[in-house]
């Protein structure tokens, strides 16, 4: 009886101890965390990395607390080290709180580092359980990542969030740049059948004054950060920034277009503007006499956004058909131009290799080592099917009258 009782109380004590001692080891209180929203990595000197973190100052951001005293909503800390993790640990010399990476929104890579190679940057991000891999990566075009993180932004108080939302906005509305997540990059590096692309970002204006809160107190901020076209890599190295048109070409091939604007010239003068509202791309490798070619098929729906053509009537089927055909041609032209360019650079950013592998694994196995010779010569066949759905709430444009006179 007593032995039994003793054993029972022993087990109870062990259970209580295991809860009270074993628990709490990974406890982190909210007020002891510094939430990072953006991470910047630059080359420092020859072989060192400079890591910059953008950390939120919560009382400045939250609308609930009135305690803010006009200090900036975010703060950046920088440190250098041989590797990313070493540099991050160096940052603790400057901060009172533990850095918390789970809410990180963007990773900015300096152009210099991108040109040198980004291969080893992602190892820590992928390995650490606290850091997610679903935030976006961009290259700081013509500058350092640290500079991008130091610019204040209006409306979105947190620049990291601004960049994050901006990337999504561009992807959804114009397609001249699209969101690339860290996990996408890691996956692409891991496979040998595709090359990396990622968006680019640049600082317009003076970096020095851009970090001041005065920058956002103006209606027209002097320094802004702005998304640009896609950065194209070969291997782990950046080789070129594509302009807006070609970047959109990548989006089209990669099935990233959600909505965008295509303008079609009229017969004589003026243009018609078509708003693509939905687009879906299917890319397949096909073989003709043992040689591969890439078949790109795009199905898209569109609305007429603007008619600035004299004499064009909106509500006629012939007009719709004509416009659809011309839109298709315009898109095809863009895609062909982009692919030609990429083939010239000999970088397979579209994943043609992957498509060929999927269509014919044995062909890929045989020719994988000759890929650099095969890729530039692969022909593509683009087919765009456009369906124009609506023409807005107007049949005839008021504009027609002006043109007639």
């Amino acid at each position, binding site marked *: 009886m007593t032995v039994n009782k003793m054993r029972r109380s022993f087990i109870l004590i062990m259970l209580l101890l295991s809860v009270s001692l074993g628990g709490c080891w*990974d406890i*982190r209180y909210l007020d002891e965390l510094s*939430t990072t929203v953006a991470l910047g990595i630059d080359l420092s000197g020859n072989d060192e990395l400079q890591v910059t973190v953008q950390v939120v100052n919560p009382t400045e951001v*939250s609308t609930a607390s009135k305690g803010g005293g006009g200090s900036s909503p975010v703060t950046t800390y920088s440190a250098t080290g041989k590797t990313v993790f070493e540099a991050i640990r160096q940052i603790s010399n400057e901060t009172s709180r533990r850095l918390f990476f789970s809410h990180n929104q963007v990773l900015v890579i300096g152009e210099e580092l991108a040109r040198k190679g980004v291969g080893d940057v992602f190892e820590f991000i992928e390995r650490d359980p606290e850091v997610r891999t679903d935030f976006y990566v961009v290259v700081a075009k013509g500058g350092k990542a640290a500079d991008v993180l130091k610019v204040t932004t209006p409306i979105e108080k947190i620049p990291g969030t601004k960049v994050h939302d901006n990337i999504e906005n561009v992807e959804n509305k114009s397609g001249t740049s699209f969101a690339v997540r860290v996990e996408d990059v890691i996956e692409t590096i891991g496979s040998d059948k595709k090359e990396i692309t990622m968006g680019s970002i640049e600082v317009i204006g003076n970096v020095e004054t851009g970090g001041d809160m005065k920058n956002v107190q103006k209606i027209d901020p002097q320094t802004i950060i702005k998304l640009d076209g896609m950065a194209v890599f070969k291997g782990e190295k950046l080789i070129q920034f594509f302009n807006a048109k070609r970047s959109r070409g990548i989006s089209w091939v990669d099935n990233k277009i959600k909505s965008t604007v295509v303008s079609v010239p009229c017969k004589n003068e003026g243009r018609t503007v078509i708003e693509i509202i939905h687009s879906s791309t299917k890319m397949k490798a096909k073989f003709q006499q043992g040689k591969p070619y890439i078949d790109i098929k795009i199905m898209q729906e569109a609305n007429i956004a603007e008619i600035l053509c004299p004499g064009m009537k909106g509500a006629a089927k012939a007009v719709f058909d004509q416009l659809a055909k011309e839109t298709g041609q315009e898109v095809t032209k863009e895609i062909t131009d982009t692919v030609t360019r990429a083939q010239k650079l000999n970088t397979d950013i579209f994943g043609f290799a992957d498509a060929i592998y999927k269509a014919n694994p044995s062909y890929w196995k045989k020719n994988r080592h000759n890929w650099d010779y095969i890729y530039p010569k692969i022909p593509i066949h683009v087919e765009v099917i456009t369906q124009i759905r609506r023409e807005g709430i107007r049949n005839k444009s008021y504009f027609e009258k002006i043109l007639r006179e």
Partner: protein
Amino acid sequence: MFSTYLKGKIKKKKASRGESQEKQDLQPFKEKKLFEDLKRNIETVKTELGHSNDIVIREFRVGGNIQAAALFTDGLSDQVTLSDFVIKGLMHLQDEALSLEQNIGPEKIMQIVKEQLITFGDVQEVSDWEQLFKRMLSGSSILLFDGCDKAISAATKGGEQRGVTEPSTQTVIRGPREAFTESIRINTSLLRRIIKSPKLWLEERTIGEVTQTQVGIMYLKGIANEEIVQEVRDRLDRIQIDAILESGYIEELIQDEIWSPFPTVYNTERPDVTAGGLLEGRVAIIVDGTPFVLLVPVVLNSFLQSAEDYYQRFDLGSFLRLLRFASLFVALLFPSLYVAITTFHQEMLPTSLMLHLSAQREGVPFPPIIEALLMEIVFEVLREAGVRMPSAVGNTISIVGALVIGQAAVEAGIVAPAMVIVVSFTAIANFVIPAISLAIAVRLLRFGLLILSGTLGMFGVAVGLLVLVLHLASIRSFGIPYLSPFAPFMRNQQRDALFRFPQWAMDTRPPFISDDEDLVRQGNNQKPEKPQGDQSRHDGE
């Protein structure tokens, strides 16, 4: 004499059950007959009751020369009934029946009185002291005749009783407005008024050696499972206790799970809920002296149902049930989830919410778990104060409470505003649970989960919930698995579980409760259909 009997009984119970040594000493009194001598009988009554002033002894003569006495308890008996129907008749006995025969014996007189004179219902012959005291103290009048060792007890029960009022718990917007009262007889009559079936059977017994409380078992013969009824009888018969002051005493003495916070007996003060339970085959245990009637067997699901689910439209009923289930989880888990997420799993929060919370927590001196426990305890204190306070100062409490907690604590920076939201929403969600007995269980378990979440995070909460589910799955109420009809899963019974299907779809009684001989509760094709024929009658005119 009687008091020593009582002492003996109680001592015996304290010693151990089934001890028959002392029982034998008491046996003589239990069966002790009344004396023939009226004076001696009256004297015994006076001594046994310690000359209590509320015992009225009215002596009179019957048939000219026979001494008789009426004994009753002032306040418990209806004096008008007594004088109109009993004493008046007795005093005039001389003129009528007795004039025919001469020298009539007391035995004969008693028979005449019993058979011809007392003009109303429940009249019984009593021959031993125990019966006599029991009846007299429950309001009956006792008639003693000199020279006769028997007495007549006439049920002249009366006196002041609280009337039927609106229920103060389990209130509804639509539905009957009456509640049970403290009188068992009113309560059984309320049930009889709802279910006018000869199958509604009532068994009564007296429990409580000192209080002699009447306890009734009510069930629908043929619908209630006979085994369950027998089990209720057995469990009630096993009770040996000095007093039953409320049905809670019975509940604790007959429940299945002693060490569980979850109630395995349902209590209600609503006759319609009780009738609903009876119609599903449950057994009602009605205890004199309390408006709370017990219903067994019961499953967890019953505690989340309200009578109104059936009175309102089925779509609203279903919505409200889902809402209650959600509230149950909120009441149980909200503070623990908040603590677990803000101390261990910040990555689970949306970024902007996390930034808001961390701004709120800026400068708060306590970790969230302490903060949560603090606020929960403050709330519990306020709540208890609110219940115990005289209603005149109730308002003060709520104002002080709201100000102290809501405003001052946040402004002083002792707690984060989010915590106040969490605690108050949890408290409100707790009130959504219609049955108080389950709400109390949830209230207690909340603290356990809170501590687990504060030490082990989400893992702790998951472990706590797992243990809870295992525990719930292991409980039975009078042989019925507590999680029915979810586990074991009964497809057909889901019509009246998480959702409330339309009346025409709930065509059977719950087979896990009712006697499965007769489960059909409605005819075929009860679903209303659109009338056939000319629909455009009015259009043509």
